């Protein structure tokens, strides 16, 4: 829908990642101005999609605040769309999981989402403008998985859902909506499920009603829908994009 996001100023974290980049492309295609945040400055500048890159460690409050301010300068005003897609994924059975690994995961996936959301909302509220936040959670935040154990990832993504609801509740009076997308098995470099192709194919047949992987573009379509006025009465919602996995 060209023009649906015309005049909107968007900030996408994890902008060099597959889903972040797909969101940025879709936002640009629908008319938004976009700033990409990522800790990997080289990967960011290599994207060259027409969005301004800003290097930022999403775990660091000072860095996030500075990046949000810098983005407002590049966008000629505070961002009114924030896509929190910065995230990491590791596999580790609980008995092997170290406290440091736990903290590192939560620092990026959950603390980073909090920091970016708070900085963005503070600027918008100060400017008296409405906006929309879309947080990338995961179906891993809704269900457990013994075959691919990642308690710290799952907990971080469940935390993102609770954080999203609280953002929705606290910032609704300011006209800021907050919703979460839960991608299922999406065809990105972060996906580990297809590392064993036979096992992956078997899972797609039995565990995914639609019988296929999703694409980063399909996640981005949901994200931009939620950021758009088509979703004007949605806030605090969890939207799985998972081919029906969580309907089983």
């Amino acid at each position, binding site marked *: 829908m060209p023009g649906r996001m015309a005049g909107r100023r968007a900030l996408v974290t994890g902008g060099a990642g597959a889903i972040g980049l797909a969101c940025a492309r879709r936002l640009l295609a629908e008319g938004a101005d976009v700033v990409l945040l990522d800790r990997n400055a080289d990967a960011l500048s290599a994207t060259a999609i027409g969005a301004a890159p800003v290097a930022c460690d999403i775990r660091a409050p000072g860095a996030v605040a500075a990046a949000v301010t810098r983005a407002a300068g590049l966008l000629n005003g505070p961002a009114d769309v924030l896509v929190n897609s910065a995230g990491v994924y590791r596999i580790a059975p609980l008995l092997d999981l170290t406290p440091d690994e736990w903290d590192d995961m939560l620092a990026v996936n959950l603390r980073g989402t909090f920091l970016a959301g708070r900085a963005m909302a503070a600027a918008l509220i100060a400017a008296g403008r409405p906006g929309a936040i879309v947080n990338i959670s995961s179906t891993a935040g809704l269900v457990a998985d013994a075959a691919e154990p990642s308690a710290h990832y799952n907990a971080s993504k469940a935390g993102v859902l609770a954080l999203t609801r609280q953002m929705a509740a606290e910032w609704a009076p300011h006209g800021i909506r907050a919703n979460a997308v839960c991608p299922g098995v999406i065809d990105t470099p972060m996906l580990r499920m297809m590392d064993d192709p036979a096992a992956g194919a078997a899972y797609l047949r039995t565990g995914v009603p639609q019988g296929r992987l999703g694409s980063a573009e*399909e996640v981005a379509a949901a994200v931009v829908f939620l950021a758009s006025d088509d979703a004007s009465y949605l806030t605090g919602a969890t939207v799985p994009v998972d081919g029906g996995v969580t309907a089983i």
Partner: protein
Amino acid sequence: MRAIVTGAARGLGAAIAERLARDGADVVLLDVSADVTATADRLAADVAGAGGGRGQVAVGLAADVSDEIASAAAVDRAVDAIGGVDVLVNNAGIGGPDTDVTGTSLAEFRRVLDVNLTGTFLMCRAVAAVMIGQGSGGAIVNMGSVFGQQGVAGGAGYCASKAGVALLTHSLALELAPYGIRANTIAPGNMATEMHWDELRSRAARSGTTFGEQVELVKASVPLGRHGTGGDIAGVVAWLVSPDAGYVTGQTIGVNGGIWFS
């Protein structure tokens, strides 16, 4: 895109039909009320007049979705009118009685289940068979409710019917996924519709307050501070039936201004 929208004579259904037509769909509007013909005629004229939409056909058909024979016949006529069906939006529904369970007659309880749940089942059954036969996939959107996710004193039949719609839909999603047909539920919150105003009038009468006071009470309970509109729901329907939601099936999407997180 060829779409059937039930409960389309007014309110949410009319708004959904209008949005789909403006997005380029041929639309059949179905309703138990004969007013649906006038709604369809008005929509056809509006869309043609606006020039922006590419929808060519808007047809109104009067039929009761809870009647097995009549609903199947209506689907046949709809498919004839628009040459097939790719999208079904089951929006037809009634509020049911505003009574405690102990004061609800069996006939009243059955009536709300018949329209809201059995009617949705009958329409899904008839349309899914056509979609499977076409072999080109499709999308079904059924109207649940936030009151199918949380209970309401005095609304047991309605709540049960809407909770039933969600699980009917999710089961259907699993059955139809191999055919490329997606099925999802929208769960609206408090909407600015005649059905909701009727409920608030009833609440006002029961509690000795005014209708206006009841409207303000509801608004104050919604984080976004307002009732939802037909346009709010139509935007979500437009997304769910489009390729943009191609990997979304078996889900309930809450559209409630933040009163319930699902």
